């Protein structure tokens, strides 16, 4: 009814060809260590993530304990970054959630699907609420332009970028969520291990079914920008249509990338070969106790996205690096035992023997 009172929308006039379909999923995941002196139990995790009295925390126990908060919905109306610099405004909502893996790794992610707005006018807000997690883009720019802008924008944190423009800021949404969980009363905030928050931005597009042979070949492009920032570009065949699965896959990737980054950093700063192995072991102990067993790339990823990990294992070879780190840790543990006898020779040796026995029996 209101439509009759206003002039016909601009795009009805003769002009450039009608813009093609738009469907881009963009998101950001940040990963950090839950601030607690030890890993927390499933019930505490559920309370930590119970951010909305109206909705449920979802939890799983296989292959490791995992729980995720209900989606927080955040309204936005702001410019979107584009590769070409073309102005593009978006209106809609972002969905964000927090999750805890293994009672110890805290992640938050935010995501939105960019679609073409039906007209140039902003509609009443209630319209945008009927389709949460969607941002309607007013401009005619295409998916490649928006994708390029979104993925490049992570470089904005460099001081050269000048005054911040008010682009869509998924990172802020995610960070707020992490902060919110980290200040909950159910954790003691004793830091077991210094670890940096890593961030991974992702953009997902779907190939149109009529792009011929290419239509069925998915690909993934992972870029490590610096110590903490990564971007992922996913192109999926139209047959893998569930964006929720793509988000889970990106969260899984971010989690394993964080594990690698954190453990590698820890090893680098543990003065291996400088200090006695026992001291080194004391430093890497939290990783042994709480992180090593969480390495299960792809465990939560949907079957039709399994190729993602296949590709990443080929290059750069996540598990190869992980295995080598584990080897290094194992060596330090071994050395610590070997160096020990200095303090109590016979006893230490005996125990060491026992240990070896124990293992061979079990094997």
């Amino acid at each position: 009814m209101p439509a009759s009172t206003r002039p016909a929308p601009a795009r009805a006039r003769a002009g450039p060809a009608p813009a093609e379909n738009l469907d881009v999923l963009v998101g950001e995941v940040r990963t950090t260590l839950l601030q607690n002196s030890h890993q927390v139990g499933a019930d505490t995790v559920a309370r930590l993530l119970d951010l909305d009295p109206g909705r449920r925390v979802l939890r799983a126990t296989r292959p490791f304990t995992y729980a995720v908060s209900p989606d927080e919905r955040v309204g936005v109306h702001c410019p979107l970054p584009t590769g070409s610099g073309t102005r593009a405004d978006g209106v809609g909502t972002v969905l964000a959630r927090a999750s805890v893996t293994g009672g110890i790794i805290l992640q938050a992610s935010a995501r939105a699907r960019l679609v073409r707005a039906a007209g140039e006018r902003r509609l009443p807000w209630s319209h945008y609420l009927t389709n949460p997690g969607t941002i309607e883009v007013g401009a005619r720019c295409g998916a490649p332009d928006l994708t390029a802008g979104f993925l490049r924008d992570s470089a904005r944190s460099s001081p050269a970028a000048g005054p911040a423009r008010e682009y869509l800021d998924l990172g802020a949404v995610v960070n707020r969520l992490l902060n919110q969980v980290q200040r909950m009363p159910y954790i003691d905030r004793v830091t077991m291990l210094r670890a940096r928050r890593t961030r991974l931005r992702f953009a997902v597009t779907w190939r149109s079914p009529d792009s011929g042979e290419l239509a069925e070949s998915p690909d993934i492009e992972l870029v490590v920008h610096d110590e903490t920032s990564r971007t992922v570009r996913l192109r999926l065949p139209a047959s893998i249509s569930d964006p929720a699965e793509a988000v889970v896959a990106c969260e899984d990737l971010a989690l394993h990338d964080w594990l690698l980054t954190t453990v590698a950093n820890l090893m680098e700063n543990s003065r291996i070969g400088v200090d006695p192995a026992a001291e080194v072991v004391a430093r890497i102990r939290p990783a042994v106790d709480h992180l090593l067993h969480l390495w299960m790339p792809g465990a939560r990823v949907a079957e039709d996205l399994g190729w993602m990990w296949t590709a990443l294992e080929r290059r750069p070879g996540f598990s190869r690096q992980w295995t080598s780190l584990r080897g290094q840790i194992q060596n330090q543990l071994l050395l610590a035992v070997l160096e020990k006898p200095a303090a109590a020779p016979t006893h230490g040796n005996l125990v060491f023997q026992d240990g070896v026995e124990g293992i061979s029996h079990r094997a």
Partner: protein
Amino acid sequence: MIVFATSDKGGTGRSVTSCNVAYRRAMQGSDVCYLDFDFGSPTSGAIFGVEAAGQGTPTGRGLHTYLAGGTAEAEQFDVWTQSTLGGGWARPLGAGRLTLLPGDAGGGEFPVNKQMIRRCTDLFLSLDEEFELTLVDLSAGRSYATELVLRATADPVLAAKTTRWLVFHRWTRQHIVAASGLVHGTQGILETGAEYGHRKPDLEDGIRFVRTAVLEPESPQLASLRPEQSVWLQSYDIDLQRLAGKMRLGSSLMIGSIPLDPVLQWREQIIVEDDISTTRIANAETGQAFEALAERLTDKSLWEGL
């Protein structure tokens, strides 16, 4: 651990000393971040030689804007790669991270409100996830910055974090009286802290004093004094010691004493090894004093309740 640097008077050497301590601590292998909470004049960028933030950052994403809610994340500078000082400042082998969070260029003091305290605790908590030492340079005297951090650290979410205070003062009668007043006086740190919910004895246990730009009577720099001057200096120094003891900042509560250094007299800067051993413009004792203070920040035996 979070360490607050404060002083009653301006121009004490608080910023220069704490920047140097942050640098030394990072060299010793800790991951350190330095927060410029001197909201009236944010200048620590200049001391670190981070030109992009010399008088605060111009990007509108500094600590002022962050605390006021204008930006979601405060801008961080990696000092190792952004500093123009000393040429080869690439992160030395074995050194930890050294990160600067500057204020905003042109920023000023602002009154404290509830949301700001929340943002401040969020900031401290998230930095503590990754940094072993968070060093916060406050404005001199009874300032909004001091009120802000006293209220933030009184929040139970920070209860598990060790917080310590360094009170800087010069070795003069007025400075000693003023520093004592800032801690023990009316509306001083202890009194105000208690109002915000701190336990006075706990707060007091976490406070130590640092003397800056000190001329020791036996210093070679004083070799040219006439005998009368030396004698007077000796006895006056003893008077000051006595006064300091009476004012509750005697040697047992002193955690560092930084000698007067000619380089710092003329230029606010980080003293690196080159300045001492190669160009030899700075005194080795100054470097040692910074080094020692950096170590003592975490030396439990020096922070036990007295």
